[in-house]
């Protein structure tokens, strides 16, 4: 019977299946961070259980870490306790940890690929919904809750029921100024925030294969914003080249064996998908969100929608609620919306190519006077690379703040947050109410669009700034 890539990975990880289809799957890679793990380790201790495979587990503190000077440690007592708890737990249970002052520290979904810990065909989990990111390597990667984190620590397996198969095909080419962030925002706008619920998405088509590894990560990262827990892409030579030589990638004869296995990871030509959606590259333009759900998206040439035009009562109420929260009026051109802050970073857009994209736009220009703009590299190694390329200087010269790596204002658990009614052009992944700070207003955009907004002081079209 023909199978999808998801079917194949699933089958290769089956430890046991009950009559009703509930299955026990083996987990190859487990990423751990400080926010969703303390209760899991506590649970292990209370039941006198060990971590079954510490060497398949990698930990890092990212959500709570300060992105300013770290020499004084963490100011916030609770954040400090959480980070210290992770350190203690890792020591007690024998788990490798990248500490706050390790240059390999960074956002969990950036360091996994960076270290070669993320590998094709593997099942990767983490107590974080953006684990979907790792699907860019052709792995089955998804977020889990803390009880499941404990389950994986204790058993190296997870109890799952199979999802359905959903293929999203994007053909053609990206136009100038358009990025994979615009592709995924457009997809979410099309399928809706619950469009992928119950499915695993496979992204396919000529445009997807033309993307770089990092661009693919941006797409898979936001799969969860379309409701699907996991999104994956068939691995190809770009993926293998990216992994070759990374510290935790297979070596010598193992590399050859891995490559042989990885090269076969693809959906069969006649595999059945339960749902399919197709997009054309030529129709994809720079996108921006106007509301409080990632599905509330329009093109940068668009206008704020009018709830009165909605027939569906739920949708109408939801638009009204969003507009009230966002302080926006129907019919306003999105380009006329003035911003206060710019945030470039996160597991969606905090990698080196993202910083290069933004730097290209901002070079020799200034951040608008009324705007505070910050860049938070996704990891210590991204930061180091950017500094070697002189990108830090480009950002600083134009008035950007250049920070230490972490999750930062994507979810505002550390000191970086919006004040009530402050409006931000952000390269992160969620524009939920209060996400970047109570009352804060988020517009999701690509790194280039964030840079354009920083210069103009209002949401703007990145294509205007192309050299």
């Amino acid at each position, binding site marked *: 019977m023909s199978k999808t890539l998801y079917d194949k990975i699933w089958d290769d990880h089956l430890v*046991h299946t009950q009559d009703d289809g509930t299955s026990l799957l083996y987990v190859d890679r487990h990423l751990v961070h400080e926010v969703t793990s303390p209760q899991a380790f506590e649970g292990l201790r209370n039941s006198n259980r060990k971590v079954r495979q510490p060497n398949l587990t990698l930990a890092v503190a990212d959500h709570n870490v300060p992105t300013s000077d770290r020499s004084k440690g963490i100011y916030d007592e609770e954040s400090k306790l959480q980070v210290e*708890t992770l350190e203690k737990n890792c020591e007690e249970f024998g788990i490798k940890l990248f500490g706050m002052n390790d240059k390999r520290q960074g956002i969990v979904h950036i360091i996994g690929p960076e270290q070669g810990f993320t590998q094709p065909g593997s099942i990767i989990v983490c107590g974080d919904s953006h684990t979907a990111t790792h699907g860019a390597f052709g792995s089955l990667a998804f977020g889990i809750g*803390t009880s499941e984190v404990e*389950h994986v620590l204790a058993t190296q397996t997870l109890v799952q029921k199979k999802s359905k198969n959903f293929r999203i095909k994007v053909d053609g080419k990206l136009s100038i100024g358009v990025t994979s962030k615009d592709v995924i925002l457009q997809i979410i706008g099309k399928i809706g925030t619950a469009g992928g619920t119950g499915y695993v998405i496979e992204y396919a088509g000529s445009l997807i294969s033309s993307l770089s590894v990092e661009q693919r990560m941006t797409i898979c990262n936001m799969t969860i914003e379309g409701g699907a827990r996991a999104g994956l892409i068939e691995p190809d030579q770009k993926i293998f080249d990216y992994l070759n030589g990374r510290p935790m990638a297979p070596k010598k004869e193992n590399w050859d064996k891995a490559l042989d296995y990885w090269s076969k990871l693809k959906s069969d030509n006649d595999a059945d998908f339960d749902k399919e959606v197709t997009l054309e590259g030529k129709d994809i333009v720079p996108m921006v969100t106007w509301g409080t759900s990632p599905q509330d998206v329009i093109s940068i040439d668009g206008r704020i929608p009018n709830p009165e035009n909605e027939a569906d009562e739920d949708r109408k109420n939801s638009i009204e609620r969003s507009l009230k929260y966002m302080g926006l009026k129907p019919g306003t051109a999105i380009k006329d919306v003035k911003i206060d802050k710019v945030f470039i970073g996160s597991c969606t857009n905090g990698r080196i190519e993202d910083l290069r994209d933004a730097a290209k736009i901002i070079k020799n220009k200034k951040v608008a006077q009324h705007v505070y703009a910050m860049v938070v590299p996704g990891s210590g190694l991204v930061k180091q690379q950017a500094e070697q390329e002189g990108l830090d200087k480009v950002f600083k010269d134009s008035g950007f703040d250049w920070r230490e790596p972490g999750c930062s204002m994507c979810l505002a658990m550390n000191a970086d947050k919006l004040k009530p009614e402050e409006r931000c052009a952000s390269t992160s992944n969620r524009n939920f109410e209060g996400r970047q700070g109570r009352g804060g207003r988020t517009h999701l955009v690509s790194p280039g669009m964030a840079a354009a907004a920083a210069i103009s002081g209002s949401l703007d079209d990145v294509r205007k700034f192309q050299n």
Partner: protein
Amino acid sequence: MQKFKTIKSIPAYLPIVNIDTDMIIPKQFLKTIKRTGLGKNLFYEMRYNEKGTLINDFILNTSPFNNSKILIAGKNFGCGSSREHAPWALLDFGITCVISSSYADIFYNNCFKNGILPIVLPEAKIKELSEYSKRKEEIIVNLEEQKITFGNNEIEFEIDRFKKKCLIEGLDDIALSLEKNPKITEFEKKLSSKRPWIFND
């Protein structure tokens, strides 16, 4: 985990779609290293103003809904972050049953790990129940019989057989999986020859 028993409670209705886990429990409360104590911060930004004072007209702040064990809400409940703090906060507040027309996958699974029953009903039934909730009368959720009783009416609901068993018996997932230890060990043996690079040694 607590065994799930039949619930009798006046349900609270929150007529909002796409309630995300940031709304259910905002990030500042994720800094805890415990599972308990989050109930007072449930729906924090809707329940309290910026000074931290209770917002009187928010449903869960008004009697009798401040004692509700059942929450009825709009579709795609629990979307966004995987934080299990969301079900922990619901549970700590006293809510052990959520009724909606759909849920985000991770939240849905997290509920079962904490003895919370998430019921899926068609939109029309949600409407019926939410109308009824205005009467401030108790309804009964019986998981054993997969039935909601309100007044003289009944609604049946579907639920995964295994998940139902786990809730009713309050089973410990990890203990169940550890019973399959020989199978896991056997799988690992095969894995080290089939995909040896996984163990990186």
